């Protein structure tokens, strides 16, 4: 993993005024830029941790119900917003065998940033389908523009992905803080709007 191994005791503690926390999931296909986005906003060096998941064993008849526990590495970052709240960003791999992990992680989350690579939109279909199936999270689609990406307009991407009405789509470069913060701001505003809609 790319994150620096830190010894116990060197932890970057939160300010003493911080007593609330929220999280956002950053999901998307392999190599789409999840780690890059998290690193761009995080106030601490990226950390990595392991989560246990139970998966059906590969090559075993699923009807026999054989399962085994595996661990998956997740990287995450943190940014303090305001004086009392810590926002955590968890990067979760999009591969099929990790889908079980999502439902657990989604519990209590503000929402998910779904990163999309327009060079391979098909991979994003699966990720979006699974998010809808396993969670009820508000989402914002982040179109990551690589140098050789075909330039699709935001509306084109929205149509191609068949997104639920009202789902925000933002495009840009998430290697810089501005692009990454914009994606987060859009997601949280969308989540708030949805929360207000539910309350009304």
């Amino acid at each position, binding site marked *: *993993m790319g994150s620096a*191994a*830190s*010894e*116990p*005791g060197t*932890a970057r*503690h*939160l*300010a*003493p005024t*911080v*007593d*609330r*926390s*929220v*999280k956002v999931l950053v999901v998307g296909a392999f190599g789409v830029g999840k780690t890059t986005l998290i690193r761009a*906003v995080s106030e601490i060096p990226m*950390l*990595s*941790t*392991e*989560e*246990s998941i139970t998966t059906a064993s590969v090559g075993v008849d699923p009807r026999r119900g054989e399962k*085994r*526990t*595996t*661990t*998956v*590495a*997740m990287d*995450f970052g*943190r*940014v*303090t*917003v*305001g004086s009392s*709240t*810590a*926002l*955590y960003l*968890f990067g979760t*791999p999009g*591969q099929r065998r990790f889908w079980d992990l999502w439902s657990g*992680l989604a*519990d*209590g*989350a*503000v929402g998910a940033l779904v990163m999309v690579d327009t060079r391979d939109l098909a991979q994003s279909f699966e990720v979006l389908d699974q998010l809808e199936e396993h969670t009820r999270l*508000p989402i914002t689609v982040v179109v990551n523009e690589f140098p050789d990406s075909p330039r699709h307009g935001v509306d084109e991407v929205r149509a191609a992905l068949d997104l639920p009405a009202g789902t925000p789509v933002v495009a840009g470069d998430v290697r810089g*803080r501005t692009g990454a*913060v914009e994606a*987060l*701001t859009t997601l*949280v*505003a969308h*989540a*708030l709007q949805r*929360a207000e809609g539910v*309350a009304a």
Partner: protein
Amino acid sequence: MRSDGYRDHPVRSYVLTGGRAHPTRNTLRPETLLRAVDDGRELPASAGRHERTLVRTCRGTLALAELAAHVHLPVSLVAVLVSDLVDGGYLAVLSTPAHDLPAKDLLEEVLDGLRRL
């Protein structure tokens, strides 16, 4: 570990937690904030190396996932150890997360904070 960060889970965790695979309370999430209780009380002599490190690392506020990363143990295992330390009064849970989506006032604060970054 394979290059894609996927590997079999060793039984070691299970042994470390005295044979329990799940924490006694499941309100602990990766983002749950924790801090050592600062009342001068020492851990009992029977406490293990991991418990000591966890309490020491929590001299300031950290989330469960950060704690796990710092001690190089899986979140699920640290959750078990932490819930015992909370029950024993050595660690305090600062934030009790919402069950479903975060409350509106919390979302408003996050949005405000992000806009001021």
